[in-house]
C-alpha cells in the first residue's frame, strides 16, 4: 500500500453529486498532476457527510479542514495553497468549524456535537467502493466472530437482548422477528433487506447504502446464519442509481474475497445476495407487498397472518429488515449488548438517523441517540429556521406520520413518545415547517400522495382516502362546511381501523394529527374562508396597495390573463374575477406594492 501525506475526501452522496462533486474529483486529480503530487495525495470519493445543505463538501486530512460549497474553480486554489504551501484556504472553510482563527475538530461544531454515529459510522469516512477500507475499520469482523465463535441461537439472543427495534418505522423488535423465522422447520429460508425508501423527504437508507454498503451485506449474512438462510435479496428503489451501483460493486467485492458465497470463513455456512430493483410503487415498502414485487407481480400486500417469518417469499420463511436496522447489527455484535443498551431511552435503545429537511438551515443527515429532544435537533443541529421565521411544526413519519407542534418541541424522541403524541418515528424523515406552511395544505399533500400510491386492493384505502382528499380539497377551496369536518374525522377513524395494510391504516395520520394540534386552521379555512399561512390559492387575493404603486404598468404587462389595468403614473387595480392567482405580478413588482392576503 502506498503511503500518502494527505487525503482529500470528496463527498459522493446523492446530495453533493447533484451539486457537482464528480467534477471536483476530476479537477482535483488534474490539479494534483499539474503540481506533480498525484502520488503523494489521495483523492477519495466517500459517502455522505450529512451536511447536505453546504454541498459539495471537501475535507482535507491530516488537518481536518472542512471546505463547503466548493466549485471546480476553488479546486486550484485549494491545491496551490493548502496542498502545496500548507496554508489552509480560510475563506472556503465551513464558518462554524473555525474559532479564533483555529480549525475546530468537526465533532465540536454544533452540527456534529450532539450526534452519535453508529449506523453512519463509516459514512463520509471510507471509500465505499473499496472493501479494504471497510475491512480496515473492523469490517466483516462481526461476521467472522459470529461464524467461528457463536451458535445461531447465541446470535439471536444478543440481538434480542440489545432491544434493537426496526428502524423502518414500525419499531418491531428485530431479535423477535429473527427468532420466529429461526424456529420454523429447516429448509429454504430467505433474508430480505427493505431498501425501498419511499417516504418523500427521507434519505437515510440511501446514504447508508451509498456510504457504507458492506455493513448491510455483512449484517444480512449474519442474519442468514442466525435463521438458517442461504439466500438474501435486497429490494432497492430504482430511483437510487448511485446506491444500486455501489451496492453491486460491494457484493461483487465480497464474493471475490469469499465473504459471500460458499463456505464463508472456511465454515460450512454459505450465503448469497441478489439485488432486485423496485419500480416506483410506494406500497412496496410494506413487507408483504415488497415480497410480492420480488416475485415479479403487482406489488399488492397480502393479509397477515401468516407473517413473512412463517410464509414469506415464495411461501418460505423470510425475514425482512430495513437498511438502517442492518447497519446497527455488526456494531452490536462487536461492542456488546451492554454498550448498546446504555445508549438511548429505556424502551428504545441505540440511535436513529433522521433526514432533516424543509425550512431549516442545515439540511442533511443526522444520527442522534434516542431520547434527544426535537429542540436539540431543530435548533442546535439544524441551526434553526432561516430568514428569521418562527418554527411551527415538524413532520415525522412521512405520509404515515404526523406533525409535532412547536408547543411540544421539548419532547424526547423515541418510538413510544412519538406515538403518544399522535405521530410516529417512521423511517426517519423530519421535515421542518415555519409559519408560512399551511397545515391543511400539508395534510392534503400527504393525502394526494396516498391516493396516488394506494394499490387499490382494499376498499377502505382505495375509496376512503380519495373521499378524504375530496373533503380536504373542498376545505382548501373554501367550499366546505363544518359537517365536512365531522365526516373527515369519521372517515379517518374508519380507514385506520379497516384497511388491509400499513399504508392504508396509517394514511389518515397526517389529517388526524394536524386536526389534533391545528384544528383552528381548519376552522379558519371553513368558517372565515381564510388561509392563515397564505398558501391556499383559492382563499387568497392579490391586491395592489395604492399608496405604494407608482403606476409603472410592469405588473399589467406580466399578467397572463390581462386582469390588471390602470393609467400610467396612477395606481393600478387587479380585477379579481379575472385573476388566476399565479403571482406573476407580485414577483414582477419592484416596489413591493402587491400583497396577497
Amino acid at each position, binding site marked *: 500500500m502506498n503511503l500518502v501525506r494527505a487525503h482529500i475526501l470528496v463527498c459522493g452522496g446523492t446530495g453533493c453529486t*447533484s451539486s457537482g462533486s464528480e467534477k471536483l474529483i476530476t479537477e482535483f486529480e488534474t490539479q494534483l498532476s499539474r503540481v506533480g503530487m498525484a502520488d503523494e495525495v489521495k483523492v477519495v470519493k466517500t459517502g455522505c457527510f450529512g451536511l447536505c445543505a453546504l454541498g459539495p463538501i471537501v475535507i482535507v486530512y491530516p488537518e481536518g479542514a472542512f471546505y463547503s460549497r466548493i466549485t471546480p474553480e476553488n479546486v486550484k486554489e485549494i491545491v496551490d495553497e493548502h496542498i502545496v504551501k500548507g496554508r489552509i484556504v480560510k475563506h472556503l472553510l465551513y464558518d462554524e468549524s473555525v474559532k479564533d482563527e483555529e480549525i475546530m475538530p468537526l465533532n465540536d461544531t454544533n452540527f456534529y456535537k450532539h450526534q452519535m454515529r453508529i449506523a453512519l459510522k463509516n459514512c463520509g469516512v471510507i471509500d465505499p467502493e473499496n472493501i479494504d477500507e471497510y475491512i480496515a475499520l473492523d469490517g466483516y469482523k462481526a461476521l467472522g466472530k459470529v461464524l467461528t465463535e457463536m451458535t445461531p441461537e447465541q446470535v439471536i439472543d444478543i440481538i434480542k437482548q440489545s432491544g434493537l427495534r426496526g428502524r423502518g418505522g414500525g419499531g418491531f423488535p428485530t431479535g423477535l422477528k429473527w427468532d420466529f423465522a429461526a424456529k420454523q422447520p429447516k429448509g429454504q429460508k430467505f433474508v430480505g433487506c427493505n431498501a425501498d425508501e*419511499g417516504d418523500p423527504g427521507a434519505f437515510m437508507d440511501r446514504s447508508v447504502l451509498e456510504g457504507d454498503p458492506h455493513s448491510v451485506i455483512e449484517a444480512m449474512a449474519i442474519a442468514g446464519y442466525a435463521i438458517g438462510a442461504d439466500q438474501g435479496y435486497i429490494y432497492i428503489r430504482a430511483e437510487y442509481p448511485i446506491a444500486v451501483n455501489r451496492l453491486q460493486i460491494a457484493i461483487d467485492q465480497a464474493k471475490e474475497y469469499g465473504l459471500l458465497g460458499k463456505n464463508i470463513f472456511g465454515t460450512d455456512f454459505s450465503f448469497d445476495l441478489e439485488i432486485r430493483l423496485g419500480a416506483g410503487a410506494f406500497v412496496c415498502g410494506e413487507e408483504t407487498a415488497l415480497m410480492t414485487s420480488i416475485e*415479479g407481480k403487482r406489488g399488492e400486500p397480502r393479509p397477515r397472518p401468516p407473517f413473512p417469518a412463517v410464509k414469506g417469499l415464495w411461501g418460505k420463511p423470510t425475514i425482512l429488515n430495513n437498511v438502517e436496522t442492518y447497519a446497527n447489527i455488526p456494531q452490536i455484535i462487536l461492542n456488546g449488548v451492554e454498550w448498546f443498551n446504555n445508549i438511548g431511552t429505556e424502551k428504545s435503545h441505540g440511535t436513529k438517523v433522521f433526514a432533516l429537511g424543509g425550512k431549516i438551515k442545515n439540511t442533511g443527515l443526522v444520527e442522534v441517540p434516542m431520547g434527544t429532544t426535537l429542540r436539540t435537533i431543530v435548533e442546535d443541529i439544524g441551526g434553526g429556521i432561516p430568514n428569521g421565521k418562527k418554527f411551527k411544526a415538524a413532520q415525522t413519519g412521512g405520509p404515515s406520520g404526523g406533525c409535532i407542534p412547536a408547543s411540544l418541541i421539548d419532547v424526547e424522541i423515541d418510538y413510544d413518545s412519538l406515538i403518544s403524541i399522535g405521530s410516529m418515528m417512521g423511517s426517519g424523515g423530519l421535515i421542518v415547517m415555519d409559519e408560512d406552511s399551511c397545515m391543511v395544505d400539508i395534510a392534503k399533500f400527504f393525502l394526494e400522495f396516498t391516493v396516488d400510491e394506494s394499490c387499490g386492493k382494499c376498499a377502505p384505502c382505495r375509496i376512503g382516502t380519495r373521499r378524504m382528499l375530496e373533503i380536504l380539497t373542498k376545505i382548501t377551496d373554501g367550499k366546505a362546511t363544518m359537517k365536512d369536518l365531522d365526516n373527515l374525522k369519521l372517515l379517518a377513524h374508519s380507514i385506520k381501523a379497516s384497511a388491509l395494510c400499513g399504508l392504508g391504516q396509517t394514511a389518515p395520520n397526517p389529517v388526524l394529527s394536524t386536526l389534533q394540534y391545528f384544528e383552528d386552521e381548519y376552522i379558519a379555512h371553513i368558517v372565515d374562508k381564510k388561509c392563515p399561512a397564505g398558501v391556499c390559492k383559492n382563499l387568497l387575493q392579490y391586491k395592489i396597495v395604492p399608496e405604494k404603486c407608482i403606476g409603472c404598468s410592469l405588473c399589467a404587462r406580466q399578467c397572463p390573463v390581462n386582469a390588471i389595468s390602470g393609467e400610467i403614473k396612477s395606481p393600478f387595480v387587479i380585477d379579481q374575477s379575472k385573476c388566476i392567482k399565479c403571482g406573476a405580478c407580485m414577483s414582477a413588482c419592484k416596489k413591493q406594492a402587491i400583497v396577497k392576503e
Partner: protein
Amino acid sequence: MAKSSTIPFAGTKEQKEKLDAVIAKHKDMEGGLIPVLHQAQEIYGYLPIEVQQMIAEGLNIPMAEVYGVVTFYTQFSTNPKGKYKVAVCLGTACYVKGAQELVDKISQRLNIGVGECTPDGKFSLDATRCIGACGLAPVLTVNDDVYGRLTAKDIDGILDKYINE
C-alpha cells in the same frame, strides 16, 4: 392520467435483438418479469403495448399479467418520453419550498400536463418522488442535469437552454 400516446411505435431490428437477449437471460429466473421490463424500457425508452406483447410471448406469461405489472408501477411508462425529460421533485422537502410553483410554471410554458410529452417529442414533464437531493430543495432534473434552489423565475432560463439547443 396522462393522455395515451398517439405516436406510432417504431422499434428497430437492433432493439428487438437486444430485447430477445434480455428475455432469454431471464426466462428461467424466478420473478424475472420486473427485471425484464426495466431493461426493455432502457432499450425502447418506454413500454408500448407492442413491446409488452413481445415480452409476454417471450416469457410465456399472459399478456394481462404483463400489462397489469406495467401499469402498477410508476417507473414504467406506456408513453414515450421527450428528448429532454423534465422532472420536478415533489418530495415533502421540495414541496414545502415551493416545488408546485415550478410544476405550474413549466406546464404553462410547455403547454403540457404532468406525464405528457410535447407534440414535437422534445420535452416531457414528470412529477417525481423524492430524489433525495433535499439539501438543494426545490429541485428539478432535465435528463441527468440537476438544478437546485430554484424559484419559478428560474424556469424560463433553464428551458430556454434546451429549446435553443
